[in-house]
């Protein structure tokens, strides 16, 4: 109900500006009136940010059409592309969906409209995800989810533990935490969250897909990912890391009652912790991820999305202009942070805008300084055209491994992911090396 009122209000505002510009635009715009753009997105309160644009740009009016989330919006878009009509001008697309969309010819190449001017605003790892390593630019990065390590500072202090800076230290701390209280774990290995594991593999230097000339390569079963899987398999086998999925009522309770002492998550974690573990306000702290190589600090991305222009849009240039403004303009980014609560991909703007820590982390005033340092170290990673298949293979194979609780099962799961992903690409007809 509320959305429909809001949409109605927006429509009226649009109609009003339409009338007004209809009187004044006779000189320039011809008699078509302002360009109207539809924008499918699910970021909370995004329409308020778009209102700022609409007020300043009577010639390009953008309407946000609220979507349920990343997956349903993409499924809808792919259907519209297949049908030949019905797609919006702009869509919020998660980074891992971009190759799938490009492969279905759903996204316009924005390099024609000058989108390459803003390349320097983004970390190289993020920019790679929207170009797929080519000269084309398929989307403008909006937010990113650099991974960080969150821990209960009070419990660490009580047990006399230092914040781990390497994965070896993380394993030691995990053993100490579990030894002090068998109900407590430093973390859990979740077979439900493929994006989480991808981020960890990314940190270790993995890039699961690659373009090599005219062929794709699938590089899941290689040293970086095997190292990560073997590491977690070892800890789960030892019993010092939990094997239950994240985002269950049980896990939520564990975050709140101190049984989950740490969480390897991303910069958006304060929102989740605030919602699920309200009793622990002020007890958590954030730190950079434990490292494989302390001399070359790295992290992965968990989550994050971009603004893309569809091939069905009749106003691709105007849409690019809007997408660029939305994600790099100071006022827009400020509004995205304050009203939509995202962590902007634009590094310079992020630093300028994010000065106070999130409410849940008021005990750590330097929260966003840490985040900014971490964000600069995101490793490059190339997603392929069948991320969905690899992710569902992750769910199934690592569920089996987590249940089996053996290191060998974790390594077998990596092999199986590689096999399933490659077989699917070959079956569809992709040239795979």
């Amino acid at each position: 109900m509320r959305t429909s009122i809001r949409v109605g209000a927006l429509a009226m505002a649009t109609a009003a500006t339409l009338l007004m510009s209809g009187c004044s635009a006779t000189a320039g715009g011809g008699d078509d009136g302002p360009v109207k753009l539809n924008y499918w997105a699910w970021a909370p309160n995004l329409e308020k940010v778009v209102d700022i644009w609409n007020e300043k740009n009577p010639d390009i009016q953008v309407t946000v059409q609220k979507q349920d989330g990343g997956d349903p919006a993409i499924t809808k878009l792919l259907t519209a592309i297949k049908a030949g009509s019905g797609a919006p001008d702009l869509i919020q697309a998660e980074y891992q969906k971009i190759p799938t969309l490009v492969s279905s010819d759903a996204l316009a190449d924005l390099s024609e409209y000058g989108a390459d001017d803003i390349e320097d605003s983004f970390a190289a790892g993020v920019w790679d995800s929207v170009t797929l390593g080519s000269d084309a630019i398929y989307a403008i990065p909006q937010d990113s989810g650099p991974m960080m390590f969150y821990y209960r500072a009070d419990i660490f202090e009580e047990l006399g533990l230092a914040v781990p800076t390497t994965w070896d230290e993380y394993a030691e701390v995990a053993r100490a935490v579990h030894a002090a209280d068998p109900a407590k774990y430093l973390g859990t290995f979740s077979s439900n969250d493929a994006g989480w594991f991808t981020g960890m593999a990314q940190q270790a230097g993995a890039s699961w897909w690659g373009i090599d000339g005219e062929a794709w390569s699938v590089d899941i079963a290689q040293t970086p990912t095997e190292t990560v899987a073997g590491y977690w398999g070892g800890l789960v086998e030892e019993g010092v890391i939990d094997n239950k999925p994240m985002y269950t009522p049980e896990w939520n309770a564990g975050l709140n009652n101190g049984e989950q002492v740490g969480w390897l998550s991303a910069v958006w974690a304060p929102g989740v912790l605030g919602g699920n573990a309200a009793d622990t306000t002020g007890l958590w702290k954030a730190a950079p991820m434990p490292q494989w190589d302390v001399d070359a600090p790295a992290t992965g991305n968990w989550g994050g999305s971009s603004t893309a222009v569809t091939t069905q849009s009749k106003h691709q240039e105007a849409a690019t202009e809007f997408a660029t403004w939305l994600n790099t303009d100071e006022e827009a980014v400020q509004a995205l942070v304050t009203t939509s609560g995202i962590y902007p991909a634009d590094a310079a703007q992020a630093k300028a805008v994010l000065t106070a820590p999130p409410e849940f982390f008021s005990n750590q005033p330097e929260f966003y300084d840490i985040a900014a340092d971490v964000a600069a170290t995101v490793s490059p990673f190339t997603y392929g055209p069948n991320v969905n298949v690899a992710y569902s293979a992750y769910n199934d194979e690592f569920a089996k491994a987590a249940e089996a609780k053996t290191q060998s099962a974790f390594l077998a799961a990596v092999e199986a992911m590689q096999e399933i992903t490659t077989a699917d690409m070959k079956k569809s007809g992709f040239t795979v090396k």
Partner: protein
Amino acid sequence: MTVTEAPVATRSSTPPVRRGRGTFRTRVLVPYAMLAPGIILFVAFMAAPIVYTLFLSFQKTKVSGLGLGAGARSTVFAGIDNYVTTLTNTEFGASVGRVLLYGFILIPLMLGLALLFALLLDSRRTRAAGFSRTAIFLPYAVPAVISSLLWGFLYLPAVSPFYFVFDTLGWDVPSLLSAGGVTFAIANIALWGGVGFNMIVMYTSLKSVPSDIYEAAKLDGASEVQIALRIKVPIIAPAIVMTALFSMVATLQVFAEPTTLRPLTNSLSTSWSPLMLVYRDAFTRDDIYSAAATSIVIALVTFAFSFLFLRVVQKRAFGQED
């Protein structure tokens, strides 16, 4: 009957040719006009989707090269490729095996309990029958997704009041969401929701039995238990067969319960049941074509099962009606 008599009536009166033609046309068209809403709805929402699914099942996506950009992806005729893939897919075989085991646990228990409750409610000594009937039926009104969420909470040791009690008593009860218990966990949810519905079907059937049969049995010295087993059960056998058939079809189509429980455990794969496999292929893997082929296979298997079952039991259950 009235339609065949109509010409006789016209013949007896003066025969105006034009009126006769009109009647003829009406006679032919009126039934179709009356059937039209049903036919249109059937064609639009049943026949057309089935035909379209068949059509999709013989196609596949063909990508060339890197598959990036315009024209890299096309839809081509696949022959029976998708069917071969489905039938040779070990995941599909495993999922069918799992739901068969699930049905083997669920159906006898559910129908047994439903029959027991129906007979108890129908026996003359029962008190508070109306209340009990509603109480047993009520879970059926809870949507499967909601009941799965409810039971999901009860299954998770850390948040379950049951496990709190077990812990207090010092019992070490394994989690029902572990690999060995998850089939029982899902069967339990379906049992909780399904007993009431099946009980109502059987109970309604019992109510339509004339009471003088029971009086006659009583006079012959039959006990309540004997009446139940020797008279009531055979009489409502067709109702029992029908509930068994519905339950079998529902078993092969189980989807909501395992899908809702899946995020809570490592023991449920995305292809646990055949329909979950179809859903995953269609909406997670974007392969609507092989999903269509798998759907057709599931529909055929369901048909085959239903017919076989009816053939086996029909003689015995509906014998008196022939």
